């Protein structure tokens, strides 16, 4: 009985120490990878800040409307600093995955493989959102300017509608790309987009019937809609 207990105890301890000895190199490798990741992350961050500074990224964000959104969200950091930080954390996350992989735990390895397979889709979805945001701002501002210069009623509403439509489109595309509730997203998008267009058509057709007729008359019958009652040649 005693012999059996001692054997069992020694066996367990031996197995434990064997496990520790087997796990220790992986742990050390993981720690080393993390340290290396931190160093690479800092280097990438510093380089990104310098390159973004040279490329006048903050000025671009000012003109694209990013900075004002950050200000409204009470984010005080410069866009270049935010992007550099984002790159830093991306590097850290990548090295974290590599470190976890070095531990050689099956479940973690499967999760990592799944994550890396999904990563391109996630990046594409974020890219679509970014392009949608930039395009929405640009086109809605163009619509606002055109509406003001044409003396159209409610120019701000026209700009907002344009921005909203582009936001819906890009959001739906991003979700579809990220494979999040794909069928629901597509159905919701079709319903929402269709509803918005129908509402606009009804609003324009019923509420703005006179305005529409007047605008069409000015455009097709009297010539330049922007010059009713003027003979000015300007140049």
């Amino acid at each position, binding site marked *: 009985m005693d012999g059996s207990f001692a054997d069992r105890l020694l066996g367990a301890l031996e197995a434990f120490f064997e496990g520790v000895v087997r796990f220790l190199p992986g742990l050390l490798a993981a720690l080393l990878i993390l340290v290396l990741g931190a160093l690479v992350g800092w280097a990438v961050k510093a380089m990104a800040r310098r390159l973004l500074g040279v490329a006048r990224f903050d*000025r671009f964000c*000012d*003109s694209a409307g990013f900075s004002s959104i950050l200000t409204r969200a009470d984010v005080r950091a410069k866009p270049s600093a935010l992007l550099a930080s984002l790159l830093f954390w991306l590097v850290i996350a990548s090295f974290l995955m590599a470190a976890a992989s070095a531990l050689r735990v099956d479940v973690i390895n499967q999760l990592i493989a799944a994550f890396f397979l999904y990563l391109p889709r996630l990046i594409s979805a974020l890219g679509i959102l970014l392009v949608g945001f930039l395009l929405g701002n*640009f086109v809605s*501002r*163009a619509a*606002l*300017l*055109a*509406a*003001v*210069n*044409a*003396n159209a009623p409610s*120019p*701000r509403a026209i700009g907002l509608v344009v921005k909203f439509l582009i936001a819906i489109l890009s959001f739906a595309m991003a979700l579809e790309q990220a494979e999040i509730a794909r069928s629901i997203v597509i159905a919701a998008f079709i319903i929402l987009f269709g509803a918005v267009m129908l509402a606009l058509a009804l609003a324009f057709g019923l509420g703005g019937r006179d305005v529409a007729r007047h605008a069409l008359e000015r455009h097709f019958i009297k*010539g*330049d*809609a*922007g*010059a*009713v*009652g*003027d*003979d*000015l*040649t*300007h*140049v």
Partner: protein
Amino acid sequence: MNDAAPLLEPLRARLAEIGEVDVLVGIPSYNNAATIGHVVRAVQAGFAKYFPDQRTLLLNSDGGSSDGTPDVVQNASISDFQTLLAAHPPRAVHRIVTPYHGIPGKGSAVRTVFAAAREAKARACAIVDADLRSITPEWIDLLVSPVLRQDYDFVAPLYHRHKYDGTITNSIVYPLTRALYGRRVRQPIGGEFGFSGRLAEAYLEQPVWESEVARFGIDIWMTTTAITGSFRVCQAFLGAKIHDAKDPGVDLAAMLTQVVGAVFALMETHAGSWRDVSGSIPVPEFGFEYTVGLEPVRVNVERMVGIFASGVQELAEIWERVLDPETMAQVRALAAVSGDAFRFPVGVWVRAVYDFALAHHRRAINREHLLKSLTPLYLGRTASFVLETAGSDANDVEEAIEAVCLEYERMKPYLIERWEV
């Protein structure tokens, strides 16, 4: 040499056949069949009356008209020179109709004229628009003779125009060009110009023919290049300018964007030339000035003030990124007044234009959006100008424009201080 084949081979062959010429007049055109016949006859008569002993060439540089413009140019002729008090010219007036090479636009058409002038070794040249209804043979004399007989390099036009005509020229292009480069060229975007063969050569050397200049903005580019290149510049009084209404499809905002964008772009190119210039000097004038009757111009002031007020309300977010805070506050205050009492003081206007030039320089927002957002401000200033000068005659209006010019010159240090900041 910037010589990327501006001449098509048939044109080159025809020029070789003609040989050297003394005077070349170019007519850029695009669907001007209704008016170009009159312009061609005026040029032909001008050659016969004022340059009978010179070798002359009329060159129509056409942008692919579909209304028969080239046929009209080929067939237009004067049958009886005696009625013009001119002898039948002893030398034939050479006439060429050619499509141009390059980006579609007036700039490319004009480039072909420059290249033909170089090829034919023309001593003096002129360009006249194809949509002119008031051109006379004297215009050719007035545009060409200062070059041929007085050794000037560039002749800008001087017109009598209705007091409300050419408001972009009067409120932005003329005063700004004058304040920047120090020369009082009254119609820097007139459309009619005389120039020497030497200047045509210099124009061709500029690396601009693949840029926006090839499409539009050629007029202000020619004037500015002549001034900043230290060429001898003068202006000639041509009388009244009456031309076909512009394409109604081109709206005011697009026109303003093109014209002001060209002026601002030239500010970048010639920043080294204008920073040290203060004040301005007149340029020599030729021609006999006389008063002309002008057709009345309808102006809808209420609509202009309405667009200005809408701009103040809707575009504040854009203007806040463009205008100095003090200017922005002043602009906001202006919108509180409407009707005949509405005024847009010249000081506020000049600061606003300088702020827009600075925002264009530092790319504060997308440049097309920036220039389009100037339209409500411009209409506000134009409405104010119309109200201020409602009872004024042409001389009073010219004095009012002079006051605008002086304000631009007075406030130029404001622009210079902020240009590189």
